[in-house]
């Protein structure tokens, strides 16, 4: 067996990782834009608390976040029980839970960069669009959002990378189940715990580096394209 031949476990872990990270990013993007908008544009009492809540996963130990998720969203958790009872959805110990853990952990990174780009958008351009006859919602989608694209790209790449690397919260919340919740880092960890696992671990390690590099290059290309478009 050559070094480059991936075992079934490794292939599964790779596919699951890409799927989970992709889902996590896709699900958190609309919410992240909304949160960034609320934090950047609205003034209301308790804004600091919301800001703190959004950023909490960034500063908490991931295991703590995972445990909190388990307490809240497990089958017997406050939210988890309600989800099961009314919608029939179970997130504990399956891939949906892995998506949720990755989304929560990467959310602050997404919100931070989206918010930064939103704060960079010239309010004067929005005002100009209003005088041209566009209502607030149209202004958001035709002026604000397009001008936020660089920040959104950065946010997407950062949160995708963070999701791929998610370990602590995932293993605490949804455990390490092959084919269900065993993502790349979890598979790598497992391989380091078994005899003869070194080659497999090294393959997964190289794979992780390659995926991360590809994501960075993609974001760089997209950002450059955008800048070129703006310059005409």
């Amino acid at each position, binding site marked *: 067996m050559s070094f480059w031949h991936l075992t079934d476990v490794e292939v599964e872990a790779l596919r699951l990782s890409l799927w989970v990270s992709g889902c996590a990013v896709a699900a958190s993007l609309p919410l992240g834009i909304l949160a960034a908008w609320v934090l950047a544009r609205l003034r209301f009492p308790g804004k600091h608390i919301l800001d703190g809540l959004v950023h909490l996963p960034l500063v908490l130990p991931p295991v703590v976040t995972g445990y909190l998720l388990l307490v809240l969203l497990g089958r017997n958790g406050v939210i988890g029980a309600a989800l099961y009872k009314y919608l029939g959805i179970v997130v504990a110990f399956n891939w949906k839970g892995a998506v949720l853990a990755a989304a929560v952990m990467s959310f602050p990174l997404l919100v931070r960069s989206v918010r930064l780009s939103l704060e960079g958008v010239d309010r004067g351009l929005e005002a*100009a669009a*209003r*005088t*041209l*006859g*566009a*209502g607030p919602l149209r202004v958001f989608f035709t002026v604000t959002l397009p001008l936020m694209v660089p920040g959104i790209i950065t946010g997407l790449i950062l949160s995708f990378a963070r999701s791929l690397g998610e370990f602590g919260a995932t293993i605490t919340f949804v455990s390490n189940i092959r084919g269900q919740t065993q993502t790349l880092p979890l598979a790598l960890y497992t391989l380091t715990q078994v005899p003869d696992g070194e080659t497999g671990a090294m393959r997964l390690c190289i794979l992780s580096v390659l995926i991360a590099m590809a994501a960075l290059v993609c974001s760089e290309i997209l950002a450059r394209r955008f800048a070129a478009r703006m310059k*005409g």
Partner: protein
Amino acid sequence: MEIDVIRQQGNFHVNASFRGAESGVTAIFGPSGAGKTSIVNMVAGLAQPDAGRIAVNNLCLFDADQHIDLPPEQRRIGYVFQDGRLLPHLSVHANLSYGMHLTPVKRRFVTFDAVVELLGIGHLLQRRPAKLSGGEKQRVAIGRALLTSPAMLLMDEPLASLDASRKAEVLPFIMRLSREYAIPILYVSHAIDEILNLASRLVVLEAGRVLACGDPEDLLSRPELLSCFDQDESGAVIKTTVDNSKDASGLTHLRFGDHLLKVPPIAAPRGTPVRVRIAARHVAVTLQQPRDTSFQNIIPGKICEIMDYSDAFVDLRLDIGRFLWARISRQSCIKLKLKPGQPVFALIKSVAVSLGISNTNP
């Protein structure tokens, strides 16, 4: 248009009330910080007055008592900003049509091709705003506002960010526009030459209050308003007509009353009305008619009044059939023993006359 607004902005209080012309250009003039932009922002709906009423063409846009406050997108007001504010992610074509597409077809009376032709921006349509010069940006911004088929145009110092040659490039388009479309324009400026060229009505603003409102020729010559203008800018406005557009030496002759004024050449046929503004500091006086002099314009008149309000200089109000201001040193005034009623000759250098082709609306 009827504008009557009160707004407190931090320490600054705007309390302005005036009526603008229903067609042609109403200029708002005042030093920077007089509240000009605040007022146009309130008219556009980008700022909310604390009290008052704003109505354009009998359509009420804001009325504090009746709780009317139309959002900007429903006011049908085209706004040309000082800094252009073109949408950087869209091409010139998309910028121009952005507002047009949001205007119901049956309400449109301005067509895309006509505006592109009027403003001479046909060759720019595929470019992005970042690739345009300052003058081109402002022309596109004007076109964009015009294409919403607005009930009124607001122009907030559209030429202030441009250098003199770019200004000369854009100004004629604004003049044409106010003639070709019957859209009232509220034009903010602190440049007297723009007002000479454009305004059919003038509102003078200072510290948030309206000092005077009326005919620009009258207001720009009034001494009590001079303090509001830059001191160097004080002078008189005279309404003239072109008598000879190009004499043997290349100068244009303008006629007012029995006198001729020789000025730098203007390309306008005989009979065209022209407003000229002669700054006080460019006018000298002599007691005898001088013979060998470089002054092209020597006009007899008499002193009406001597205004003495600065240390080294005095301003003379001269009657030459029209009023004219001359700023001379106090020392000269004493030496020549000038007093009201005395006949003098006013000397005016040709190059010192600022011109504006009078904007008489058909």
